[in-house]
């Protein structure tokens, strides 16, 4: 601020003459307040709008919950259908009965525990093996093939093999 300006601001009288003030008021002051009926109508519309928004949100939330309950029910049904509580034997692998043609190891016309026993002995002694003895088709002849032969031997529904 320069020396000249300083003196200028000190001398300036900031008071507005009352006449000018009255004229300005007459021009810019609102002519009348908001009538109470308009005020009420605005409030009513606002209230209606927000209650509609709230109720649609509540409905959406309820639908979401219903879907969650339905999803949980579907999971429970799936778990029951798997029957996870059912007790199983030593091995529960399932396989096709057509495989049993290949697991009559001693070729005596029936599959019994001796076929599994003989296969286990072959594997343990590491002597000759036949590709047909790969009962589960995993490319290896091992204990899992022996288990499959044994499980075929004890199947209740195998009939005459």
């Amino acid at each position, binding site marked *: 601020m320069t020396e000249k300006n300083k003196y200028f601001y000190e001398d300036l009288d900031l008071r507005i003459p009352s006449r000018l003030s009255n004229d300005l008021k007459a021009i810019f002051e609102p002519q009348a307040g908001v009538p109470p009926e308009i005020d009420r109508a605005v409030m009513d519309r606002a209230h209606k709008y927000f209650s509609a928004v709230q109720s649609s949100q509540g409905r959406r939330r*309820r*639908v979401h919950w*219903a*879907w969650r*309950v*339905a999803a949980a*029910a*579907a999971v*429970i*049904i799936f778990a*029951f*259908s798997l*029957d996870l*509580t*059912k*007790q*199983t*034997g*030593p091995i*529960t692998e399932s396989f096709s009965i057509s495989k049993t043609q290949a697991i009559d190891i*001693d070729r005596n016309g029936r599959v*019994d*525990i*001796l076929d*599994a*026993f*003989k296969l*286990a*002995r072959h594997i*343990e002694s590491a002597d000759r093996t036949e590709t047909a003895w790969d009962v589960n088709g995993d490319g290896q002849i091992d204990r899992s093939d022996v*288990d499959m032969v*044994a*499980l075929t*031997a*004890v*199947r*209740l*529904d195998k009939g005459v093999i």
Partner: protein
Amino acid sequence: MNKITTIILTSICLIVPVLAQRPEQDYSTDQPGVRFAPLQIYIDSGSKSLAAYQFELKAVAGQIKIVGVEGGQHEAFKEAPYYDPAALANDRIIIAAFSTGKDLPTGRTRIATIHLQIIGDAEPKYELKLIVAADADAKEIPAEITFEKGE
């Protein structure tokens, strides 16, 4: 609202049939005349060593359900034997086991224990049939199979 009703009704329609099937698999002891008893199975292979066996057990009188199978007394057959899981909750089972070990039992030995649920007051009768018994060379040997009822 309609959506919620549809979802709930669909869930009920799916759950009810599933739950309705469950009681068949329960092993309830609350029913009158239901008890559990083990059945000890023995094989007497005489002087020959027993390396493998297979037998079938079924109830010919009375009402039973097989609820579990355990291995035997000798180390060679201590592990749970092979059986079809479908035999559980049934009255017929085929059981088999083998051992490739050197230590094998001779004479009379307990080879398995079958746990049964007996329904009703009638004493069940069993038919036990030895399908095969073999020695360490996988050769069939003569043997006798018997059972004893446990408490």
